[in-house]
């Protein structure tokens, strides 16, 4: 059934369809509507869940931790500063292999205070051991969240689905919503074999003495690497049931492309427009959009990008003092490859600085020129910075 939903509503609806049992979230712009919508579902009896009105995001994720450990399906949502505040617990949840699912409305990081969009928040916790998925539109928010619950519980790994604040969270789109029965068939109830239970007492979260810590982290790392195949399998089943196919990445008009753009999230939508215009002019430009960011699919990206002469990595974040996160991860995947395109990093859109199709066309022009010359100019390049600041 088609509904007109903004990104936050899509996220809340996904949690409802997934029959989450414990919700614990603290309101923060631009995620607030997720929390409000869920509260309304519970108040109206449409969703039978415990809604814990926590006093901070740190406690929000802590409540999810306790609930998940007890055997309940737990969900939370946040953005930016909230994600930062709960970041300590992100690592604890993943280290304890609890399948908590989170919706993160990507928002910029303070200081300076910004409620607007970019991907600094989720990218700065890329090391936390969570599976990270990025949606391009509201349909994907709904679908990827349903996928997330299934993926998290089958692998015992927490998962976050990220979507751009305001651009998606506050924009209404037409979304195909599956029925409750269809979702129930895809997502069985959560019943872990290990949970807190006086009939079978166990100790969760002991001291990780040096004799075993290395192994514990290695096993967790291996499990997270395994989430790549896990995602492909689950997405395949999702595609069969619901008709919408998702993969680790999407290749948009990449045949014979000399120039390839790499991007995540809604930025890819704008990039697709720019690619279309270039292709009309006969230029061989394409786009690779990454859906699964952690675990990082190095091999798949190498396969998708090798053919190009030059790759422009577009991202809405910066590891301040160096390059963007997506760029450094991608280049690392190519470190030992014999065939490597030229890589350029473009930092754009921070704090909702608008990225227009024309801006991307300009980027493509720059990239093609430097690709031909075979040398990279300034790297990374910040798109749209006011001239007076650049001097």
């Amino acid at each position, binding site marked *: 059934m088609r509904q007109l939903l903004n990104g936050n509503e899509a996220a809340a609806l996904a949690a409802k369809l997934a029959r989450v049992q414990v919700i614990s979230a603290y309101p923060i712009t631009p995620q607030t509507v997720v929390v409000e919508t869920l509260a309304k579902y519970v108040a109206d009896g449409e969703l039978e869940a415990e809604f814990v009105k926590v006093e901070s995001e740190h406690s929000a994720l*802590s409540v999810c931790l306790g*609930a998940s450990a*007890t055997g309940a399906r737990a969900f939370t949502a946040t953005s930016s500063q909230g994600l930062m505040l709960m970041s300590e617990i992100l690592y604890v949840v993943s280290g304890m292999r609890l399948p908590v699912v989170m919706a993160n409305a990507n928002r910029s990081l303070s200081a300076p205070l910004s409620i607007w969009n970019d991907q600094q928040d989720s990218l700065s916790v890329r090391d936390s051991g969570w599976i990270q998925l990025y949606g391009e539109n509201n349909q994907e928010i709904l679908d990827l969240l349903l996928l997330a619950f299934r993926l998290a519980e089958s692998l015992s790994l927490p998962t976050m689905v990220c979507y751009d604040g305001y651009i998606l969270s506050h924009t209404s789109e037409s979304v195909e919503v599956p029925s409750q029965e269809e979702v129930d068939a895809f997502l069985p109830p959560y019943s872990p074999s290990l949970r807190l239970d006086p009939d079978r007492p166990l100790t969760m*979260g002991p001291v990780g003495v040096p004799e075993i810590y290395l192994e514990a982290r290695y096993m967790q790392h291996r499990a997270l690497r395994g989430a790549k195949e896990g995602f492909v399998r689950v997405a395949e089943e999702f595609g069969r049931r619901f008709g919408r196919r998702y993969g680790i990445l999407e290749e948009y008009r990449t045949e014979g492309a000399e120039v390839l753009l790499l991007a995540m999230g809604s930025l890819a939508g704008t990039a697709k427009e720019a690619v279309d215009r270039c292709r009309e002019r006969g230029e061989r430009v394409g786009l690779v959009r990454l859906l699964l960011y952690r675990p990082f699919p190095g091999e798949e990206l190498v396969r998708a990008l090798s053919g190009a002469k030059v790759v422009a990595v577009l991202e809405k974040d910066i590891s301040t003092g160096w390059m963007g996160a997506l760029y450094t991860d991608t280049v690392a995947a190519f470190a030992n490859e014999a065939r490597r395109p030229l890589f350029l990093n473009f930092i754009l859109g921070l704090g909702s600085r608008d990225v227009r199709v024309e801006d991307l066309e300009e980027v493509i022009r720059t990239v093609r020129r430097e690709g031909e010359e075979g040398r990279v100019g300034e790297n990374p390049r910040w798109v749209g910075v006011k001239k007076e600041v650049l001097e």
Partner: protein
Amino acid sequence: MRLPEEELLAPGHRACPGCGEVMALRLILKALGRRVIVVQATGCMEVVTTPYPQTAWRVPWIHGAFENAAAIASGVEAALRRLGREGIKVVAMGGDGGTADIGLQALSGMMERGHNVLYVCTDNEAYMNCLDPSTLVLTEGGLKRVSEVRVGELLYSFDTQKQTLVARRCSGVFFNGVHDIHEVVTPHHLIRATPNHPFLILERGGRGGRNRLVWKTLSQLRVGDEVVVLKKIPYGHSYRFNFRPARIGDPKVAHLNPVRIPERSSPELMKLLGIWLGDGWVRPERAEVGFALPEGKRGRRELVGLSQKVLGTTPTGNESHLYLYSSSLARFIDSLGFGRGAKNKTIPAWVFTLPVEERKALVEGMMLADGYSLGGSHRYVSASRELLRRLRLLLQTLDYRVGKIHWQERRKGERCVERELLRDTGFGYLCFSRKRAPNLEEYPSQCRYGDHLAGNEFFEMERIIELRYAGRNQTVDLRVERDHNFIAEGMVVHNTGIQRSGTTPFGAWTTTTPAGRIGRGEDRSKKDMPSIALAHRIPYVATASVGYPWDLVWKVRKAAAVEGPSYLHVHCPCPTGWRHDSSLSIRVARLAVETGCWVLYEAERGEIRITFRPERRRPVGEYLRLQGRFSHLTEEEVERIQREVDERCRELGLGWYG
């Protein structure tokens, strides 16, 4: 009222002897029974009860982080309700740090939302952390294992003002339980300690800046850091032996050989003993003291001379061995503590108290036996690793440069120091040489640049060459008066740490509120957590103490029966942090209540009722005096505490009598 016999907290956990918190835990679990889920904050209790792969918990238990026990418990409770699993009580537990400081927010949220959770705070009034018990510490009575040091003993210490060696009184010995141990290695010293143990380090001020000595914890040390170490002990006095020679009439003594047993040590005797240490043995049952000294070996001539001079007798023997037959002498040497058997020889502690010449003489004797020199470098070989280790320490006290102990295994028949080996054996050697004194007159800055303490009579700087993890072990700590440091394994170390929390009482010494010329310990009063809980208007709030177990159990059961949030604050002495003997924990806990420093009450729906009234309230001094953390308080400061306690008791309606 009866308590179940079943122990829901298994013995074998790593809490310190006398720990109040773990006593509380045990009682609380007995009071609650099995149908619980425990959510624990990071803290002493979490660490000592769950060293993977072991756990002390026989009930379901989860630990997440330091500040969120109440939030995790909220999640557990919500899940149980949603899943329809009834009859299970959720208990959140934290120490004073995890409750009153960093955990306050989550606790407040949990109480405000009305979750059905019992929150227990086990309050030992600070954040609690030491040395491996085999660590050798320099006392006035010689080198001792830190675990053998007694309160009142004089320890050598680094006077931070004058930068000299002084003797200071040890005012406490604390067994701190099992912790991670790391090793700090410098060219001539090795010490094992916990990551929070402070060392005296040189902080370089950089170009134009001043260098100064600062305390840094082991976890902050880096390879290359310069640490203050002991150079040599110049003091010493001849040792008076406590030995009763045999007399005619003693069992089996019919005849006495004319051997003079020395009453005190002397350089000649020490040299003789040094030769014996390397090449000798003793068989008291045969009244035999023997030396494997072949003719031609220089040691042989020396021994004969020394024996005549010191013992008044000439050894007998053949071309390969010398013997002294005297049951007194044999028993005497056996009693000195050098050990028996090539692999078990060692240097006893009293040798370290001898004057320089006597210590040197022992080394000379040892070198005559099993050592050899190559130019300015000397080498000593032995089959006893312990002997090499002790010799190394002894040489350091004599201001020698010493190397590592090199150990190897050899086969039967191979030659080793002029002898063929009779069987497969392991042995090692130690190299040492004289140090060159720095030319301070001509090059003062350069010398000080290399060694901040160049020219100092007793101490010098050494660079840390390695820092490594050494496993988990029991740890011991000492409290030393005034400068609060002592010399362990040659390095200057501080006594460790216990940092303040919001519930640290007024006047208490902690490492973050130390008492000195200006600071006088903790300058804030204890945060009143029970009142904060009361302000949230929850159904049940109570205070308790491990010194009153039935009162505690009664309150635990009452709190658990509440449908909604309940808060229990338990006062728990900590011998390690409060600096009292581990056997006194209950007495200290009771005195806290009997003096009114801790009042036992409960509040049902906001109405406070005192549950124990001491017959006659004792003066606070009786409680404070038992604890080292209050030992710096003046009379006026104690009076101020008394006034505060009086005021608080008046508020609660607890008078002086009953």
